[in-house]
């Protein structure tokens, strides 16, 4: 690191009257080490600090935004939370006739390895559409897969769209996997049948998925936490194994990719059966090839009071039925998918820092105002076009 070596201040001892505040190159270097979550405050300190904050923002990787869609039969709305400004923004989306009405395709989130790519898709028996941008302000129609299914696992693995499992009317199609090149030329999307999902996943009530450039990873959200990956080159699944979650009290898990690492979030707690209550949320790394969990290093741990907030269910008694986990670029958003009250943002500090930084984020007002609408969530680092 090179800073200006000329020092225009006299070397004198202590004393008042001298401008002792951090400025110039030193200020820039300090600001570059300040978390993105503090930059807004830094920018309000003084003009010099604002300049330093803005130039730091231009040089660094942005934290991922949280994308929220409220879907109902008649309309949808879209909202983005930007950690840097610490605020939600409503994004106008054109009323897309084909996505509304009784036969409306269901809009849901997909796992994606494409940074800046779509995070949502819409699927019905006769229609498949892929969002043209992360939030889904426009859509691209594709040929629907050959097997009709409900709530499949959908992922963009590189440029290949993989649709796996889901509820199939025809028993013979259970666990069926199809793949197509979503960005191939010619506008066509030719679906290739691939090896079906392993048995363990066909009856799973809930699956968490993550995508790398080449593979789709799936994990059962509940014990025994069966896990496997699907390789889009070989079109084969690896042998299923149960993830050995380092917390023996873990009840719910979810996976995601962040900075090229496969991460596992697990909610642990105490109590049995309906009496189980979440007490901890921790994140570990998972080895991509072997699906070994790196138990020696806890990547992140949610503060206790936040876990209580996450499990807050308004007295319904269900606590935390599953764990919402969206991660990208060294940040992660946690939420309760059933009782959505708050989001919890975790920033993994750079090496030399003192562990993770956690913040609470209130959802946009519309979520509470429209309790019947379905909330669909994604997260995406906003790529800046230069």
């Amino acid at each position, binding site marked *: 690191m090179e800073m200006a070596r000329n020092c225009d201040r006299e070397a004198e001892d202590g004393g008042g009257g001298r401008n002792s505040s*951090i400025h110039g190159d030193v200020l820039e270097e300090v600001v570059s080490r300040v978390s993105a979550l503090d930059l807004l405050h830094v920018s309000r*300190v003084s003009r010099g600090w604002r300049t330093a904050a803005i130039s730091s923002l231009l040089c660094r990787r942005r934290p991922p935004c949280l994308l929220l869609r409220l879907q109902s039969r008649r309309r949808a709305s879209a909202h983005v939370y930007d950690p840097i400004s610490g605020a939600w923004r409503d994004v106008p989306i054109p009323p897309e006739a084909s996505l509304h009405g009784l036969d409306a395709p269901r809009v849901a989130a997909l796992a994606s390895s494409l940074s800046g790519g779509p995070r949502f898709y819409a699927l019905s028996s006769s229609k498949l559409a892929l969002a043209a941008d992360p939030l889904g302000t426009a859509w691209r129609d594709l040929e629907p897969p050959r097997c009709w299914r409900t709530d499949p696992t959908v992922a963009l693995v590189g440029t290949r769209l993989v649709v796996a499992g889901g509820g199939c009317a025809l028993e013979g199609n259970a666990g069926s996997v199809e793949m197509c090149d979503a960005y191939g030329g010619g506008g066509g999307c030719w679906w290739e049948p691939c090896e079906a999902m392993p048995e363990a996943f066909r009856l799973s009530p809930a699956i968490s998925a993550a995508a790398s450039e080449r593979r789709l990873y799936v994990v059962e959200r509940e014990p025994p936490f069966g896990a496997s990956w699907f390789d889009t080159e070989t079109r084969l699944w690896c042998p299923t194994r149960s993830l050995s979650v380092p917390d023996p009290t873990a009840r719910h898990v979810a996976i995601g990719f962040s900075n090229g690492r496969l991460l596992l979030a697990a909610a642990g707690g105490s109590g049995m059966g309906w009496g189980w209550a979440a007490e901890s949320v921790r994140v570990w790394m998972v080895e991509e090839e072997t699906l070994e969990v790196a138990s020696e290093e806890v990547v992140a741990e949610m503060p206790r009071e936040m876990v209580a907030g996450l499990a807050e269910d308004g007295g319904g008694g269900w606590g935390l039925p599953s764990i919402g986990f969206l991660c990208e670029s060294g940040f992660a958003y946690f939420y309760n998918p059933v009782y959505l009250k708050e989001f919890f943002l975790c920033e993994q500090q750079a090496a030399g820092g003192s562990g993770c930084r956690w913040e609470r984020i209130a959802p946009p007002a519309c979520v509470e105002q429209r309790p019947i609408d379905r909330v669909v969530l994604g997260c995406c680092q906003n790529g800046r076009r230069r």
Partner: protein
Amino acid sequence: MAKMIKLVSGDGAEFEVEEEVAFQSKIIKDIVADADDVIPLPTVSSKVLIQVIEYCRKHAAVNSFPLSPSSSAAAAASSSSSISYSKPVSDPALRAWDNEFVKLNNSSLFDIVIAANYLDIEELVDLVLETVADRIKGKQAQEIRRQFNIENDFTPEEEEALRRENSWAFQNN
């Protein structure tokens, strides 16, 4: 018998230090290779030089007897790294010492980082910058101003506009 190097501060005070202590500074290491053992440092005051020497003395002792292969590997890796974040000091005792060392006011830290940069003592530069960044963490603008004794040079109208602005103009996409 340790070879001694003489450092002369901006206000003329002389400090004799062991070679390995002085060599924590890459600049000094280069100068001594060619020339004298008396090195004038006109831009560094005695007060700051004493503090820097104290840091170098502590780190020289640790660097000559690395605790584990991983700590020396980390040191080797960092010198060729272009990433601006500090590498973790792997020895917890040394980290604790560093944390005590930087319990200084901001203007002293500023002086030290200027000197450490001039002398090219990378670890000390990183340590101070990280410490200062840590003092900013989680604070609102007014608290930051108090902490660093900074004058608010925004006009009231500008401040009001900033408060209303909840996302910067160039973030609109």
